[in-house]
């Protein structure tokens, strides 16, 4: 295949191949770790640095908008490294014809989200392109945070680690899809878009034995778990009945033929921790947190799902998806 398709951006297998193709051109010790944020050593400090672009359509959706998403997404990526996010940049690509009022609303939303996450917008850029060359507004944010203490959160889980998640999956993807496609389902489904840095901070206080944290955005929980199984060279087992999914989200997924485990989240994270510390971390993750599985030495690089009826099967990485442009 010699052209870019939407599947190259969906978080699945093709996107990973594309990332790999580019990574090889820039290979370095820092980049090759392929974590949500890069860990840099500057003077005596350890800095986490991450960047992300936001092209969600529609730009306003239940539970958030592209501005809030652009702050939370980058704050969360920095946080997943165990860092305290401090500063972000804000670069806007605006399409000719975008209403100034819309831009103001988005900027206010950026301000609000940044204040809530206690990060400062410290540099920025604006480009305007002719009508048709963008879709209203695209945003890029980069974030910098500082890794304090000796926390070393990476991409390698350990055998016996317990896996926790901080709440129900698939809210963001289904909320956006419902409004984007004008499906006409009247529902209360809202995006879970939120900053995770304070939850992460509490987790790090609760345990010194966290090996991996990851926010399962594009490609959903299943794809994130597969990435971790692969980078750890270990197996992962999760229990279907323990993975929280809201009833309304589950039903909308059923109607449309989607599997919630592959639908994007924007305010969820999984945490891999030594079994003895799991109860404390669960408490730190909040009241909706659940233990969903564990890391094993069997079936290396493979995720297995124990199904509700008591059987088990492979939980593969996302192959292709009918859900373009969720974040």
């Amino acid at each position: 295949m010699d052209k870019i398709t939407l599947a190259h951006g969906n978080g699945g297998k093709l996107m990973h191949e594309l990332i790999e193709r580019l990574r090889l051109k820039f290979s370095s010790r820092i980049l090759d770790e392929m974590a949500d944020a890069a860990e840099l050593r500057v003077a005596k400090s350890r800095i986490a640095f991450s960047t992300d672009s936001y092209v969600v359509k529609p730009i306003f959706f239940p539970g958030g908008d592209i501005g809030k998403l652009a702050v939370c997404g980058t704050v969360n990526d920095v946080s997943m490294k165990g860092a305290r996010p401090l500063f972000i940049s804000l670069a806007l690509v605006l399409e000719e014809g975008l209403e100034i009022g819309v831009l103001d609303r988005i900027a206010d939303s950026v301000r609000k989200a940044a204040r809530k996450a206690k990060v400062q917008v410290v540099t920025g850029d604006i480009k305007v392109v002719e009508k048709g060359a963008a879709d209203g507004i695209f945003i890029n944010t980069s974030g910098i945070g500082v890794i304090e203490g000796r926390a070393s959160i990476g991409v390698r889980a350990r055998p016996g680690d317990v896996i926790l998640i901080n709440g129900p999956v698939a809210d963001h993807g289904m909320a956006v899809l419902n409004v984007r496609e004008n499906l006409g389902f009247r529902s209360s489904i809202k995006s879970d878009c939120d900053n995770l840095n304070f939850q992460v901070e509490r987790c790090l206080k609760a345990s010194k034995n966290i090996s991996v944290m990851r926010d399962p955005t594009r490609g959903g929980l299943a794809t994130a778990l597969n990435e971790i199984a692969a980078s750890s060279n270990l197996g992962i087992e999760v229990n279907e009945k323990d993975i929280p999914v809201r009833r309304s989200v589950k039903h909308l997924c059923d109607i449309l033929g989607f599997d919630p485990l592959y639908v994007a989240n924007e305010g969820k994270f999984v945490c891999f921790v030594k079994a003895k510390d799991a109860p404390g971390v669960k408490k730190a993750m909040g009241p909706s947190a659940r233990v969903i599985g564990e890391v094993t030495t069997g079936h290396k690089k493979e995720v297995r799902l124990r199904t509700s009826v008591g059987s088990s099967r492979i939980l593969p990485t996302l192959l292709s998806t009918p859900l373009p442009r969720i974040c």
Partner: protein
Amino acid sequence: MKKINLMEVCGTHTMAIARSGLKKLLPKGVELISGPGCPVCVTPQEDIDRAVKIARREDVIMTTFGDMMRVPGASGSLEDAARDGADVRVVFSPMDSLETAEKHPGKKVVFMGVGFETTSPTVAATVIEARKRKLKNYFVIPGFKLLFPALELLAGSEKLKIDGFICPGHVSVITGSVPYREVADRYRVPCVITGFEDADILKGISRLLRQISAGKSEVEIEYRRAVTEKGNPRARRLLDEVFRPADSAWRGLGNIRSSGLRFRKEYSSFDAGKAFKVKVPRASLPKGCLCGDVLQGYRSPKDCKLFTKKCTPENPIGPCMVSSEGACAAVYKYG
């Protein structure tokens, strides 16, 4: 112990069974065979080729369900056509196609229609509505299939020896349970209309086994919360108003009498086949592809030499790998 072959006719069942890992829990000797109830899988390649050819015309907006996008034809898929600049749009409801036609009066909007009794009445409704709104730019490729002629063919197959049918819940919402009596009575094959939750499927299987051990062949409804004896007569009236049964080619199964739908004369102006005179060459399954046998239940995806090697969901060769509800896609994904 006697081997018992149960066929789940519907693709949604195939996927639900794979997803829950049910097969591994069944007692030895009870086999689940995937049937031909995946509309994408049984659509013959000629229909795809015709749709691709029509989609490539400058004056056309092609609309279809997402699943049809990647089905490969002789000259690529609808997705390939879109990549080359054709206007192909995925819709969630056929009504969206109608809205598209209304919004673009200068274009011819074509809906690539596939599916069984579950989906075809909704398309019939769009045709009736299009006539009411006096739309002259809305067309349908009638690739629809009827369940019962195929079911009878499979029930009567000496080669297959099916002991029971796990019957599709969604189709039965429309058809009701009455038409299954023919299959149960004439071919002595028990039928249980089953829902799609894990517990539904287990109950469906257990009811079939109970009938088989008692030597019965009856029609039972497990999916009571959605299916009645009578089904949905209003939906069937819509279907009957717009379409009439006609012989139809099924990928893998060949031509089956009265198993498809054609436009009635009064509605023939909506027939894309008439509006666009496109000729496509006869097609055969790609070399080595076993989809034909898989669709009839003779062989399983793992018997195919192309399976997981040349044929994967990203690069599907046969239709059973393309469709998210195809038997090969189910085995590929969930093992």
